[in-house]
């Protein structure tokens, strides 16, 4: 039996929709508020306290911005921040360019071959960080590692190298592994974006005698720009959060050369139990990433019509 049609004016209709919409969103919003917004607020507030395992949050332990001032005088933190910036500066361009190159090489292949390559480059992501790290640790091993064996039998090195224990190499080992686990998603995105490039423009340019390189830079590159920006931002965010590789491979060593902000935060919170200090670090990290994301949205909204 059909309900009698109800005539509602604009406001009443919107009020009704508001009620319905919030009922629909209730479950998700409960989780979102309880496990994202609330801890976020708690993190910001407790970063103003000398909050440790022994000192709970109270009026006596309120220290204002002292945690933040301390951070900028903490040599270990500055070192960790510096290392993180190195990781970002090397990894982000490498991941972006490499994935763009791979995608432009594979996106015109036959469907089967294309998804084969896509899977290959996605494999390290799916395998999972821990499994990937464990196998790389073995390959980097001084005595039984395959890397030392391969390089010495090719005559490139004459003495086995302690890859992860050497100040010169440790961070590059981290970057290499990070690289293999970060390119999967950008490749999927680029393949999709390149497939959406307006083919008539490409053909028109080819008729006019443009070379492949010209077609790429003049036509395809501007059209995949939004994807590039997105990839740059997510890779930056991921690199800033780099933690498991460090924890499982080097624990920040040797001599702090691979310590990152995220790992230092973890140490402070869960080994030293300095919660307030760790939360201050988290807030700084969040601010940096928020600024980077804001820049992306700014740039994107300026010249993007997707």
């Amino acid at each position, binding site marked *: 039996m059909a309900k009698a049609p109800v005539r509602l004016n604009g406001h009443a209709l919107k009020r009704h*929709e*508001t009620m*319905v*919409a919030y009922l*629909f*969103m209730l*479950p*998700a*919003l409960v*989780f*979102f508020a309880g*496990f*994202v*917004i609330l*801890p*976020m607020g*708690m993190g910001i507030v407790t970063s103003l306290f000398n909050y440790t395992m022994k000192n709970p949050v109270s009026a006596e332990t309120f220290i204002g911005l002292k945690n933040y001032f301390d951070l900028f005088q903490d040599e270990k933190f500055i070192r960790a921040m510096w290392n993180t910036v190195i990781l970002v500066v090397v990894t982000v361009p490498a991941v972006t360019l490499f994935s763009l190159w791979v995608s432009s*090489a*594979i996106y015109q292949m036959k469907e089967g071959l294309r*998804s084969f*390559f*896509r899977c290959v*480059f*996605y*494999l390290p992501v*799916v*395998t*999972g*960080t*821990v*499994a990937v790290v*464990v*196998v*790389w640790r*073995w*390959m980097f091993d001084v*005595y*039984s590692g395959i890397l030392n*064996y391969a390089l010495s039998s090719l005559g490139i090195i004459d003495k086995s190298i302690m890859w992860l224990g050497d100040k010169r190499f440790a961070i590059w080992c981290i970057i290499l592994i990070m690289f293999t686990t970060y390119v999967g998603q950008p490749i*999927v*995105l680029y393949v*999709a974006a390149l497939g959406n490039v307006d083919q008539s423009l490409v053909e028109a340019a080819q008729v006019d005698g443009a070379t492949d390189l010209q077609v790429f830079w003049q036509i395809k590159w501007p059209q995949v720009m*939004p*994807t590039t920006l*997105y990839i740059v931002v997510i890779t930056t965010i991921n690199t800033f959060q780099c*933690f*498991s590789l460090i924890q*499982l491979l080097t624990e920040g060593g040797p001599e702090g050369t691979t310590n990152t902000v995220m790992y230092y*935060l973890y140490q402070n*919170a*869960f080994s030293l139990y300095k*919660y307030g200090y760790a*939360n201050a670090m*988290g*807030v700084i*990290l*969040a601010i940096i*990433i*928020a600024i980077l994301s804001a820049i992306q949205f700014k740039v994107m909204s300026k010249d993007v019509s*997707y």
Partner: protein
Amino acid sequence: MKKKKITPYKVISLIILIIVAFTFVFPFYWIITGAFKSQTVAISLPPQWFPTEPTMANFERLFKNPAWKWMANTVLIALGSMLLVCGTASLCGYALAKKRFYGQSIVFGLIVCAMALPKQVVLVPLVRMMANLRLRWMYYAIAVVAVVVLGMLIWSAVKNWYNLKELASPAKWKGRTVLTALLAAAVLAAIVWYLASLPGLIANTPEKTPMTNTLWAVILPTVGWPFGVFLMKQFSETIPNEILEAARIDGAGELNTFLTVVCPIIKPGFGALAIFTFINTWNDYFLQLIMLQSRENLTISLGISTLQAEFATNYGLMMAGAALGAVPIVTIFLIFQKFFTQGITMGAVKG
């Protein structure tokens, strides 16, 4: 379409591509073969490219540690997160995409902002929070949700049996209406009673058991993360307004419209989100690390890293653990990779 030319550049790039692809596959190959190598074989040089004398010793040793338990925990966490994420995110994403309501831009803005922030910065406060929450409360919450859902089902059944107007004016209540209401209340009370007395649920959980070190501590924050909402909003945008309008004119209720009209249309979205959440939860290491402690509550990732701390250079054993964690999830990925690819692309730009 004209034939593609084969240029030297293309040949060279294909060769490089194959070499690079090989280095991406090699670690995976090394895990699988390494799992069947004994310790003496694993550290011998030159390395054995293929295990000529495969051994199961690594797996036997692995299962002396509670590796089955770890696997079970991982599956439970991944499945639980997947179901909860799909349920909550689809409802919320649909409302965000298709309803016009007060505060819409605020809710959506909050969700986008939270997505842009690093997940890890909320984790320290989250652990403190979980340590203060009690496992019992979780079971009470489940009971309440179950009652609400069942109540809604009973309500809609009642609504369809009787005209709603009859229920709204008590003067018109007849015997059968009151009877049905009483019956419904009794059924609900019985369910609550039953849930509360289930062994291992509320009755047997000590008052002070904290939420940390339980699987809930990993599942709940995963569900809170709003990526799923964003993805389902993207999928819901594709629903034609005319269909929703038609359903409304036919007198379908809101929930009914969602279940019978919206859900079938956004089925690919469910596929993408489910597989995405499953794989990400399976491989999420940091959250598990800070939430779970006791040996029998670990996940497979945590289990491997614990073993690594104990037997650092027993590479065969490590590879067996890695294989146990990686092979199921890679298989699942290969089966459902179409959904997965779609999920990644839909969740990206187009904002």
